């Protein structure tokens, strides 16, 4: 049994962890930068240690400072939350070296899943379907045509050093390959000084559907079903829900079993998420694995009545998991409320919150660490609250979410609440008919208050 957990994080997830630790009778230590001196995690933790100035690099990302804080408070475990050092294999390794339990996977498991190519290979070996792709880099146009034929059109040609959507071209048929190849490689050379290209099958009408898994240190894993996170803008999730309107029982079981196979193939210890892409033909493909707790974990907690943070801590203490899988009993949806102005292209809106009232009531949960009078620091991410609603049907969840959004008052800064209000009225969203391209055609004009 841990006596004391140090939380190497901040904001709402730090508070989330403090809450569960307290319920388990475990003492908590919050580390904080000077910018977070007046934060709720600092207030509610049993102890707090200031570790540095506002910049993340000199505080929340500083392994020596966090380890020093663990040492002087005699913490026996560290919970890394999400982001920051949560998927840093060196941090996991250093904790092990100093005899402090890292509440998460082993350094090796983080490494295996952290590298996209290694992760795909590991999954292939485990018999988990992956996005079909080229064998390494494409040699030339002729090679590209040959590989595309094998994979099957449409394909996407991608820069190996790429990111941010640059150096990518979708190719629908062979006659387009020559020009796609040359423009993609020119763009890659210009943006990344590396014109290397590889190829993947282009997933049509892709939905981002992820499966929550949990594995104990004895090699057993289980799944807690899916979250549909297809509503994304620039690869940032805006809304998540469970169950997915796209899945039926059969596909859920297939994907769940694949996720368990994936986790057991590396004897995964902790909670994690296997991200899949589904296509319009109802195939699913492994995309990546997140070896940490996720922002949207409350969605699963609400539909299967499970405390995922508690499970993480229990697994880290050496408990065995039950081994059974969990299926959604209700419907739940989460809206991420960010300090951003949806009328100005979601530009950040830091500043002081002058007035704050979060919605409450039956089936409404708000995970937040802000309050009236709180000043949002500009050094960290812009998420200020997660609004999670649950009900027996998806229609009721949407009605409840609308009521809750109307009741949500945040003054002094701009938030994405108006965007969510409009989204809840959107016909395609209400029908559950959407994929990851949804936001490309969402009209951001005429947002309500």
């Amino acid at each position, binding site marked *: 049994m841990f006596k004391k957990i140090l939380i190497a994080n901040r904001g709402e997830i730090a508070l989330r962890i403090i809450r569960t630790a307290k319920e388990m009778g475990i003492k908590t230590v919050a580390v904080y930068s000077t910018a977070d001196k007046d934060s709720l995690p600092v207030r509610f933790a049993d102890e*707090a240690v200031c570790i*540095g100035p506002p910049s993340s*690099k*000199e505080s929340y990302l500083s392994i*020596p400072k966090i380890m020093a804080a663990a040492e002087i408070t005699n913490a026996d475990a560290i919970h890394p939350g999400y982001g920051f050092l949560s998927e840093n294999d060196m941090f996991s390794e250093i904790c092990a070296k100093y005899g402090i339990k890292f509440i998460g996977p082993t350094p090796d498991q983080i490494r295996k899943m952290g590298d996209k190519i290694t992760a795909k290979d590991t999954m292939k070996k485990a018999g988990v379907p992956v996005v079909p792709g080229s064998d390494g880099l494409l040699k030339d146009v002729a090679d590209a045509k040959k590989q595309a034929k094998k994979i099957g059109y449409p394909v996407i040609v991608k820069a190996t050093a790429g990111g941010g959507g640059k150096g990518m071209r979708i190719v629908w048929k062979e006659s387009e390959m020559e020009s796609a190849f040359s423009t993609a490689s020119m763009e890659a050379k210009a943006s990344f000084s590396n014109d290397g290209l590889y190829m993947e099958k282009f997933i049509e009408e892709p939905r981002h559907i992820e499966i929550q898994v949990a594995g104990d240190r004895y090699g057993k894993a289980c799944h807690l079903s899916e979250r549909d996170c297809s509503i994304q803008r620039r690869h940032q999730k805006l809304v998540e829900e469970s169950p997915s309107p796209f899945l039926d029982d059969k596909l859920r079981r297939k994907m769940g079993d694949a996720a368990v196979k994936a986790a057991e193939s590396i004897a995964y210890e902790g909670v994690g998420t296997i991200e899949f892409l589904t296509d319009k033909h109802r195939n699913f493909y492994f995309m990546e694995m997140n070896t940490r707790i996720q922002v949207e974990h409350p969605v699963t907690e609400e539909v299967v009545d499970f405390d995922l943070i508690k499970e993480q801590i229990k697994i880290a203490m050496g408990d065995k998991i039950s081994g059974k899988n969990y299926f959604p009993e209700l419907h739940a949806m989460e809206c991420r409320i960010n300090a951003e102005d949806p009328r100005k292209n979601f530009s950040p809106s830091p500043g002081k919150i002058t007035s704050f009232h979060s919605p409450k009531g039956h089936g409404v949960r708000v995970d937040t660490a802000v309050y009236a009078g709180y000043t949002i620091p500009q050094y960290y991410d812009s998420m200020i609250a997660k609004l999670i609603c649950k009900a027996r049907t998806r229609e009721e969840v949407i009605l409840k979410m609308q009521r809750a959004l109307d009741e949500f008052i945040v003054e002094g800064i701009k938030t994405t609440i108006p965007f969510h209000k409009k989204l809840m009225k959107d016909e395609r969203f209400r029908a559950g008919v959407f994929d990851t391209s949804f936001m490309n055609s969402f009209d951001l004009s005429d947002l309500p208050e």
Partner: protein
Amino acid sequence: MVNKNNIAELTIENQDFRIKIKTALAATYSTQAPVVMQQMPQQIAMPQMQQAATSEKPQTTQESAKSEEASGGNTITIKSPIVGTFYRSPGPDKDVFVKVGDEIGVGTKLCIIEAMKLFNEIESEHSGRIVKILVDDASPVEYDQPLFLIEPK
């Protein structure tokens, strides 16, 4: 001095300053002219240890020194640049680095802050006289925690 094992909340108020101690680790002073201490990096490479970076800090903090003063006249507070355990001497049988009343100069070693078996010597950025030592030997300290009060020359 508050013991590490006391988890007490304690507020002491005085016309010039207010100390609110949550635990031994979270002492914060609301006034004072904060001057962040520069340290000589031994094994840990930390950005704020470089000459260029720390020489900027006194400029911003001197401005606040003009408007607020601690009790007893013009003093400068030296704060901890790192997290660790504060030691007044280089070794268990050795003399302390500095005592109250000592005259110090730029570069005078003031204390050691130890973390993860690495010993960091903290050097003074100012000349002056040590007025008060704010932390007990072998106590844990956090970032920005006040360590010494110095009356500058």
